[in-house]
């Protein structure tokens, strides 16, 4: 499938934004200035971006505790995200959600989620809305290999199939649920699970943007075409720990180093588009510089932005009470 130049450039920028956003958080978190905890998406950028490049603002996604990448890929503003992670009143959730609850319904981002397996049932509901309202949109649940074992996820695969919902289930398989390997915790295969619930299954290498874009395009077209749900299984490597501060004593020392060396989605993307003569390296360097500026200014602004005030504590529990 031919991908438009603008899409490629936008996707490259989104992947670079995720990378720099997360690398910067890794540094800033270590200073102790960021409250709570954060889960970084570095290494997995091509998954969120490759999937979301097939979506519009009308389509809905639900994310996970490792949600920054999905937010950026779906179009949530970086400044508002950074301010949120710093707990500022200018944050996209006014400082009341934090890293694990960033949501922006205006661009179809139904929320990161602090509960493993929390998203798939919600996506069944979003898909039901799309189907009932006849708006032609699809709903996409991102979830990890860990969440793939949750009852909520398995129930959702069944419900989506029973109701023939325009839903896509994206298993982001980074090999670990917290500190336990998928090879230990996941019985059988994702492929067999999709088959068991009567939906098509596609898998791809998550370090290859083009492979993800192609596979996600097929899964999303299937769902959008009114053929019911599909499962996309993306094979990934997580470059950091489960959360920041995780010493990753459960991983062999070379595991992440090899992934960084051989499976860096950004490097692979650059090589491919420059070798194909689609972009000059300098054009991509310009994108990198612009993204670096954007992240720098987002951090500076977030650190300087106002904190929530006491009345905010009681605000927005209900629409009316």
């Amino acid at each position, binding site marked *: 499938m031919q991908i438009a130049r603008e899409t490629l450039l936008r996707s490259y920028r989104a992947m670079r934004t995720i990378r720099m956003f997360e690398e910067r958080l890794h540094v800033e978190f270590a200073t102790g200035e960021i409250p709570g905890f954060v889960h970084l998406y570095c290494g997995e950028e091509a998954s969120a971006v490759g999937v979301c490049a097939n979506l519009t603002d009308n389509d*809905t996604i*639900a994310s996970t505790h490792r949600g920054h990448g999905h937010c950026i890929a779906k179009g949530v503003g970086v400044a508002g995200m950074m301010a949120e992670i710093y707990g500022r009143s200018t*944050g*996209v*959730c*006014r*400082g*009341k*959600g934090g890293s694990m*609850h960033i*949501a*922006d*319904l*205006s661009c179809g981002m*139904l*929320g990161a*989620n*602090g*509960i493993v397996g*929390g998203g*798939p*049932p*919600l*996506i*069944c*509901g*979003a898909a*039901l*809305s*799309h189907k*009932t*309202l006849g708006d032609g949109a699809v*709903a996409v649940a991102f979830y990890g290999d860990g969440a793939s074992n949750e*009852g*909520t996820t398995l*129930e*959702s695969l*069944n*419900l989506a199939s*029973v*109701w023939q919902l325009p839903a896509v289930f994206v298993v982001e398989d980074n090999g670990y649920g917290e500190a336990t390997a998928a090879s230990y915790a996941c019985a059988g295969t994702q492929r067999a699970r999709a088959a068991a619930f009567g939906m098509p299954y596609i898998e791809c290498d998550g370090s290859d943007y083009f492979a993800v874009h192609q596979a996600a395009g097929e899964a999303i077209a299937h769902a959008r075409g009114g053929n019911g749900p599909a499962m996309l299984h993306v094979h990934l490597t997580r470059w950091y720990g489960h959360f920041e501060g995780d010493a990753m004593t459960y991983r062999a020392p070379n595991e992440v180093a090899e992934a960084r060396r051989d499976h860096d989605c950004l490097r692979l993307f650059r090589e491919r588009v420059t070798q194909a003569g689609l972009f000059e390296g300098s054009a991509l360097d310009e994108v990198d510089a612009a993204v670096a500026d954007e992240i720098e200014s987002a951090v500076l602004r977030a650190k300087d932005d106002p904190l929530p005030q006491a009345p905010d504590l009681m*605000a*927005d*529990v*209900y*629409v*009316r*009470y």
Partner: protein
Amino acid sequence: MSKKSFRQAINEALRQEMRRDPTVILMGEDVAGGRGGSAGVTDAWGGVLGVTKGLYEEFGATRVLDTPITEASYIGAAAGAAVTGLRPVAELMFVDFVGCCLDQIMNQAAKFRYMFGGKARTPLVIRAMYGAGFNAAAQHSQALYPLFTHIPGLKVVIPSSPYEAKGLLISAIRDDDPVIFLENKVMYDEEEEVPDEAYTIPFGEANLTREGDDVTIVAFGRMVGFANQAADRLEKKGISCTVIDPRTTSPLDRDTILECVADTGRLVIVDESSPRCNMATDIAALVAEEAFDTLRAPIRRVVPPHTPVPFATVLESLYMPSVEKIEAAVTATMNHRVVEKV
């Protein structure tokens, strides 16, 4: 206006709201029933106790959705649909089944608005049956409204009669927050005059079913009827009672409770939920904190013991609050004498 049962009142509220607003949908286990069965019929049940009977016929499969027996996925789907443009009414059948889907209610639907900085609306109604008195035993008889009341972001409604059920359910469906709507399973055949047209009853505004001078009785759901029967008997003994039906436990009409206690100086709370951390303890704490000086006797709670709901009729009767137990509690509070310390 005509006599309608609790069941008919709820059915009528659903039907009228579904006619008014095409985004209102129903989902749940056998809300129609019969899909795929060998008889080839649909709307075989209309809900396990027939409350949603006939709605499938009128509104069809896109508005009345039978679900697999998977509470987590469809309650979660209802939450997800609510936040993306529909107004789902999901039926959980027995409220005891919340154990299978609490995350989707407690961590998802209830918290969207706050966690997302006020940017979400989740117009979701979850209907469920509650209460003992049906010999349904420990897993089908609980009165779990304190559990929901505890969770910020949820509203909790407990109708005490057919009239109340219709007006409160219409309010629940039109409300933009998640609402837990609890129906006492023993009350479905109770009848009273219910207007034919749609009407609403606001949340957080208690109903005084009678006013008296001596004792305030606060009761919920089915217990409102019990409290009024007890008050009738007590009237004959010269004791006059105010009976408050708060209608909703969240929001709770604190002002009406405090005003009535200030007038009578005595308070009895009737609550059929398990006695620890229930509505009776909540209201007792409220009154102790805000109206201590108006009390002329200790607060009395008429509640079940701290046990699962038993099966055998004799044990279930012992377990439940009753008219007699309420009468005894009111009498005890009237007989209380303050002993002045010398």
